[in-house]
């Protein structure tokens, strides 16, 4: 009774009028304390891990990939549980997902473009006006 906000029980009652954005039977539940605490503990452990792993030298690019991989896992945990996207409509996930895809396209194409002519610039020192 207490675990499901009445806002959603009511919505189930009058669901036919809420259009395409309504939830299925139980609606998003209140995130239990154990889930919140577990996610927080894992996030802290991953923070320690990402600091610790910096001491190991995998190389400039590989260290970046390891750090980013840990960051992506942390971001997933925050989005899925703290921002309770996991319990919400898939519609919101789609918004975030599309947004992230476009950021990726933006960064990757810019890097590809920059990488094409950067070696040329490296060879020729730019002399500021003196």
């Amino acid at each position, binding site marked *: 009774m207490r675990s499901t*906000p009445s*806002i*959603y*029980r*009511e*919505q189930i*009652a*009058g669901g036919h*009028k*809420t*259009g395409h*954005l*309504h*939830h299925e039977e139980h*609606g998003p539940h209140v*995130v239990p*304390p154990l889930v*919140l*605490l577990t996610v*927080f503990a894992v*996030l*802290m452990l991953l*923070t320690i891990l*990402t*600091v610790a792993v*910096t*001491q190991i*030298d*995998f*190389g*400039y690019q*590989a*260290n*970046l990939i390891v750090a*980013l991989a*840990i*960051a992506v896992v*942390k*971001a997933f945990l*925050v989005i899925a549980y*703290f*921002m*309770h996207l996991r319990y*919400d409509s898939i519609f*919101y996930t789609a*918004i*975030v997902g599309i*947004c992230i895809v*476009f*950021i990726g396209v*933006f*960064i990757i194409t*810019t*890097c590809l473009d*920059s*990488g094409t002519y950067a070696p040329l610039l490296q060879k020729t020192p*730019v*002399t*500021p*006006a003196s």
Partner: protein
Amino acid sequence: MSDATTTHAAGHDHADGHGAQDHAHHDPHLAHHFDTMGQQMESGKLGMWVFLATELLMFGGLFCAYAVYRANHPDVFIYAHTYLNMTLGAVNTAILLASSLTMAWAVRCSQLNNNRGVMLLCLATLLGGAGFMVIKAIEYNSKFEHHLAPGIFNQYNTGYAPKGDAVGMVNPQGLKKRIDELAASASLPAKRPGIAATPAQPYLFLDPNAGSADAAIIIPHYNVSGDLSPTQMIATDGTPAVPAGHGDAHGAVKPAAASHGTAPPPTGEHATPTPAHGTAADNTHAAGSADHAPGGAMPFTDLNSELSRQRVNTFFGIYYCMTGLHGVHVLVGMALIVWIAYRAANSFQKAWILPLIPLFLGGYLAFIYSISHERMFLYFGLPVLAFGALWMVVRLGQAMTLKAVTDGEFSDRYFAPVDLVGLYWHLVDLIWIFLFPLLYLIHGHAGS
């Protein structure tokens, strides 16, 4: 309330008849253009997620600048990131994660009709935000002390022009003569590839922590510096011919540098891979032991071209843009959380929550003054602090006379504001989760 009347009329139009339905239409929080509280909640959440997506896109532009720059200049990143204090960055990460936990818990409390819990957890979240901003101020101040402020206030900028250093206090002719002496003794090359023939504008640095006798002349970009006294001249190129009492070029600039935990990499002009240079790196790391690299692990020596030296300035441009924009988001988030705490508070608690804003702001400005000794922060901070204290006293006095105590306004039917502000605060956390490893945790050897 006009809203309630309107929705009441709408309820009659629909004539659904269910008890729960009627109850929904009487809810003062239900706007007239929504049918149910649930529909209103979903619409608000959709709007919030679209807004968060635009926020991500905005930061995406900065991440793109970072990616391009890092991909093209690994040596600059490996060198410049050692100016950042990894310990402070990690502590800030932990603080933000903890505040995200308290915020998520506040949302939970609001869904369970626990307004007192919402208010207390919001205050806990605010404490986290304040802690983050305090540490950020310490970090920024440390950068400024190392002449690594944004733009032309960065020592790596070719147009370096430090602010507020009282050049007028000395005889200009004497200063000019002294600068010429310094330049001559350091045998500045007349012309080097990639740099203007004349060195950047020399300046006089007065250390506020010491007497004016410790004034130092610095010719930026050539890393030539010296005291006003002709016998105390420092011309470092990694190997110090330094009078007693001066550790290195940085020591002369700012003796208090190491106490803030940011170990400056040696800024030798000819940063070539020599044993002498490596020793200098070890020394500075020992001095600022808060830094993470064991001595010699960082390939400072990779930064051997004048062009790379200039690019360190751009690294700090990216650093300030990303952390600055993020810091603004933290402040906005804190303001929103005060708003939530206020709405969740009962009538007695409402009295003292709003004065927390000037108290925090004034205290923060006063704190910045205490570490930076910039009087401006005191001039703004003290009145705000005094105003906050006065307001708090008055409101507490008023609260004592309150008879009826009303509860906060959130419930399992109406918790959308808590939820949406929570989402914003988690986004702030999310951005920092990426900023921390990208800015503070760069490691590895260029070209490998």
